[in-house]
Each structure stands twice: as structure tokens, then as C-alpha cells.
């Protein structure tokens, strides 16, 4: 008897649930009771019109708001600039003991006469390591976005870039230029302790030489110089070498041991140069033909 009633009750609830009716009052939960009655759905057109209105309003207001924000920001910055210490005075707060130490002791502590390079590769090498990682990842990201699959034939939306013929003028101009570019890049990389330039500038020039080779003599000659496999190897090797060497540099005591570290400094600089050169060339190759 009791069983039967419960059974019937359950069945009633089930049917009413299937039919989509609201549950009877005495069996609803407290939370369910507070549910607001459903409003009629807005029609598709109404929704679209409202959306367009909102977008239109946004586009009407956006330029004015952006201009106001820009002007306010420039005004605030100008006021700040007016209160800055004068340009080019030796007793400005920025010229404190840190730069003094870099200039006075940088030479014996890192073995580099160029204080900027000493700072980048020596004192703040960890920063540079992070930056090398950024470049490595940037090439990887661009590769994900732009690299074409080798096995898949060209689709309609990813048209194969036509292999344009190299310009005669470009070719003739590049022929004498490339050796000098590579030479000056090597000079900057190997001689960064005593002259301006260093890993970044030298690496960029090295990459620029590769770019010029690739642009003037076609992709094949550049690939002969640096194939895809070699490219990946060099890129990874540069980053790993920098990490390992800088770790060693820290652990054998960057502070204190004087001239033992000069060679290591050169190697660190070379590693940064390799990473930067590979990054620059990789960007060009991926942008122009979609593969290394």
C-alpha cells in the first residue's frame, strides 16, 4: 500500500518532468521555487539589432575616448618630464655607484673593456639568458603560425609563394657585399670586448648576411649554407651553450677570479650571437617562404 503510493507519486513526477511542467509546489526545492518565470526569448532580429546598436555605439564613442585617454596620458607624462633632473648632468640620480662600479671594475671582473657588453653578458647575463629564451620561443611561435606542411600540396587558401627570380642588380650588388657583412659580423662577435657591438649586433649582422644570401641567390644556396636540420641544431646549441656556460660562469665565481674568465666571456658572446643570428634568419625564412 505504502509502496504503491510512493510508486505512483514518483511516476507522476516523472511524467510531469518529461512533459516539461513545473513541479507542484509541495515537492519543489526551496531554491527551485525562487526561479524567476521565464521571459519570452527575444527574436533573432531583435537580438541582432541590439547587438548592432551596441557595436555602433561603441564605434561612436571609442575614438573620442581613445583620444582623451591619449591626451591625458601625454599631459601627465609631460608634467613628469618637466620635473625630471636635467639632461646630461653628471650628478643625476641615475649615475650612482652601480654604474661607477661597472666602469671601474668591469674590466678585471669580466675581462671586457666595453662596459655595455660587460654588463649584458657578464653582470646581467641571467637577463640575457631570459632574452635568448624569448627569441627561441618567438621563432617557435612564428614557425607554428607560418610553417607550411611539406607533405600537403598547396591549398587554395595557402597558395605556394611563387619562386620569383632574383634581380640582376640585387645579385650583382650582393656578391661583393656578403663577404664584408659576414666579416664585420665575425669581427664584432670575436672582438666585442674592446669595440662597440657584441652578441646582439654581431648576431644581427650575421643573420642579415644570411638573409641577403637567401634573397639574392635563392633559397637553395642559403639552404646549402644552413640547412633546416643544421638550423635547428645551431639554434638549440646556442641556447644550451649559453645556459651551460653562464651556469659555469656563475659557479666558478664571476666575482673575484680575474683574468681566467676572458675566454669564457668570448664564448658566451658567441653563443648569444648564434641565437640572435638564427632568430633573425629564421624570421626571414618563415616570412618569405614558409620554411627554413
Amino acid at each position, binding site marked *: 500500500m505504502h509502496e504503491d503510493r510512493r510508486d505512483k507519486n514518483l511516476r507522476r513526477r516523472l511524467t510531469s518532468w518529461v512533459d516539461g511542467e513545473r513541479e507542484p509546489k509541495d515537492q519543489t526545492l526551496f531554491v527551485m521555487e525562487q526561479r524567476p518565470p521565464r521571459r519570452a526569448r527575444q527574436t533573432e532580429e531583435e537580438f541582432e539589432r541590439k547587438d548592432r546598436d551596441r557595436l555602433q555605439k561603441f564605434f561612436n564613442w571609442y575614438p573620442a575616448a581613445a583620444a582623451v585617454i591619449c591626451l591625458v596620458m601625454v599631459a601627465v607624462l609631460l608634467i613628469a618630464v618637466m620635473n625630471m633632473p636635467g639632461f646630461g648632468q653628471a650628478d643625476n640620480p641615475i649615475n650612482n655607484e652601480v654604474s661607477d662600479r661597472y666602469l671601474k671594475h668591469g674590466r678585471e671582473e669580466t675581462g671586457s673593456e*666595453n662596459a*655595455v*657588453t660587460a654588463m649584458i653578458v657578464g653582470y646581467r647575463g641571467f637577463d640575457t639568458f631570459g632574452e635568448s629564451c624569448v627569441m627561441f620561443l618567438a621563432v617557435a611561435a612564428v614557425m607554428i603560425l607560418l610553417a607550411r606542411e611539406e607533405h600537403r600540396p598547396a591549398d587554395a587558401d595557402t597558395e605556394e609563394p611563387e619562386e620569383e627570380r632574383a634581380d640582376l642588380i640585387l645579385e650583382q650588388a650582393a656578391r661583393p657585399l656578403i663577404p664584408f657583412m659576414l666579416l664585420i659580423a665575425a669581427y*664584432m662577435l670575436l672582438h666585442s670586448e674592446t669595440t*662597440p*657591438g*657584441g652578441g*646582439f*649586433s654581431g648576431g*644581427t*649582422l650575421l*643573420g*642579415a648576411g644570411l*638573409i641577403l644570401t637567401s634573397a639574392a641567390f635563392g633559397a637553395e644556396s642559403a639552404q646549402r649554407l644552413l640547412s633546416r636540420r643544421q638550423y635547428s641544431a645551431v639554434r638549440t646549441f646556442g641556447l644550451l651553450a649559453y645556459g651551460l656556460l653562464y651556469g659555469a660562469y656563475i659557479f666558478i665565481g664571476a666575482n673575484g677570479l680575474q683574468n681566467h674568465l676572458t675566454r669564457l666571456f668570448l664564448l658566451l658572446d658567441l653563443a648569444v650571437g648564434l641565437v640572435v643570428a638564427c632568430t*633573425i634568419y629564421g*624570421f*626571414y625564412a618563415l*616570412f*618569405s617562404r614558409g620554411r627554413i
Partner: protein
Amino acid sequence: MIVLEYILLAGVIGCAIAAPLCRRLLASVIVYITMALLMAVLWALLQSPDLAITEAAVGAGVTGILFLLTLKRIHALRDRSDA
């Protein structure tokens, strides 16, 4: 020397304002490259040769090349009007 500084600073500001206002994208990119080169000269005046070399190679050279390649990819080099 200070006159050269003023000329360069004015040139940098002028290029920066003009660069995105050009009607053709190609012109925009070229004016931007000009700005980067002027900036490199400014840095040489400020006694930072490392910065000047890097900016001339990277800011003017590589960034310009990347922009131009992108322009070619998005077919903005062919038509004469705004892309």
C-alpha cells in the same frame, strides 16, 4: 652639434607622425624605416655606439624587411590605392 640634434629630434617626431598617416601601407613602412635610421644617428650622438649599430641593423633593416614581406603576403604592394 646642438643644431643637428634639434634637426634630428624634429625629424624623428615628424616621421613618427607621418608614418601611420600615409595612405599607402608601403609608404608608411618606408617612413617608419626612415624614423629608425634617424633614431640610430641620435644614439650615435648620445655616445651609445652599441645601440646605434643594433638599431640600424635591427630597427631599420630586419623590422623593415619583415614589414615588407608581410605587405607582400597580404597583397598590399600591388594596388596603388590604400590597401
